[in-house]
């Protein structure tokens, strides 16, 4: 067998999502955006995006309307708390179990 190069295996990590797994499963309640109230959605132009700025986990897109990545959203609720239009409500995950 050919010998391996010296030190070819080191603890060098490569960037990628989901090191902590699908962290969406940590959630108890799910943030749901009411597009009637959401400022960029309502105005149909770039505005507000407070939820995007404050999301610790980078799971809300800066799009119109903003989209939440439920695969990774941990359900911290900061977006709901900070939304100036009160457009985000937290909905019990049990409701979505069937999905």
């Amino acid at each position, binding site marked *: 067998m050919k010998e391996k190069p010296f030190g070819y295996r080191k603890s060098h990590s490569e960037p990628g*999502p989901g090191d902590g797994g699908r962290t969406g499963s940590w959630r108890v309640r799910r943030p749901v955006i009411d597009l009637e109230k959401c400022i960029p959605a309502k105005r149909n132009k770039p505005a507000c995006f407070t939820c995007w700025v*404050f999301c610790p986990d980078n799971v809300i897109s800066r799009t119109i309307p903003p989209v939440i990545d439920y695969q990774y959203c941990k359900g911290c609720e900061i977006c709901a708390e900070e939304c100036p239009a009160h457009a985000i409500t937290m909905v019990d995950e049990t409701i979505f179990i069937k999905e």
Partner: protein
Amino acid sequence: MASKTTILTLPEDELVHPGNRACAGCGLSIAYRIGLKALGRDTILVVPPSCLTVLQGLYPIAATQLPCLNVTFASTAAGATGVLGALRALGNTSTTVAAWAGDGGTSDIGIQALSGACERGEDFIFFCYDNEAYMNTGVQRSGTTPQGAITTTTPFSGKRQQKKDVPAIIAAHGIGYVATASASYPLDLFDKIKKAKTISGPRYIHIHIPCPAGWGFDPRYTVKIGRMAVESGLFDLYEIENGKWRLTGASRKLIAGKRRPVKDYLETQSRFKGLSEKRIDKIQKEVDTKWEGYAQAMSVKRDQDGPEPE
């Protein structure tokens, strides 16, 4: 100063991957995500053990899209020095070198290396993310734990000593830029980092980081509580540029405006539940005295310089 960044001008490029191991509602995650946007992709990070080590991921997956050297607890600033030394030796003068340490890693075990690097004038940005205790190891008191805070090593009546003033210690090295910031004011943080990037030599940015698990509050209030720390005048946003100190942003507005009672802030967190009314009064008085000093300094300055543009 360059025009202020708004949410709409904040870069969209995300350098932190979702699905990392940070707690839900982590204040560090907000500051880190915004911080990396400001630093940009031509950056090498140096990180000692802390919650950030966990956030950045376990081998072989990294949550951060920047090259990062994990180093031992006491060696952060020396690690940044070594990266810089090598970059200079290899002819690279453009890459930003940023160290990002916790409060223990900065104010306690890391301060010797940091002081040495500041004295030598190393060309890096050192971030201290201050969540006011050793959170990663389970909330033990650190040099920057504020007085009265219950931690697992100040379990009953809270820390007796005051919070170590690390930015003042670093500023005493006479470096070009020292600033404080808060996870709750991401645009202010972003602009300070941008400014720091235009300056050479050691730059130090101390970021106040609310921690739901360590401080005892619901994760949804992370941003609110960080804001209250500023609005009550407990944690102040300022920068010291070439020795000139000035309050910035929300803290600057407090000179003319009204500060929230510290009690509002302290009551939101279970770590302060051991505080008697008397101790809260004492803390309030200390904050009042500090701000009287600020007001005096500002009025003297105004007399000398005329009003400063906001």
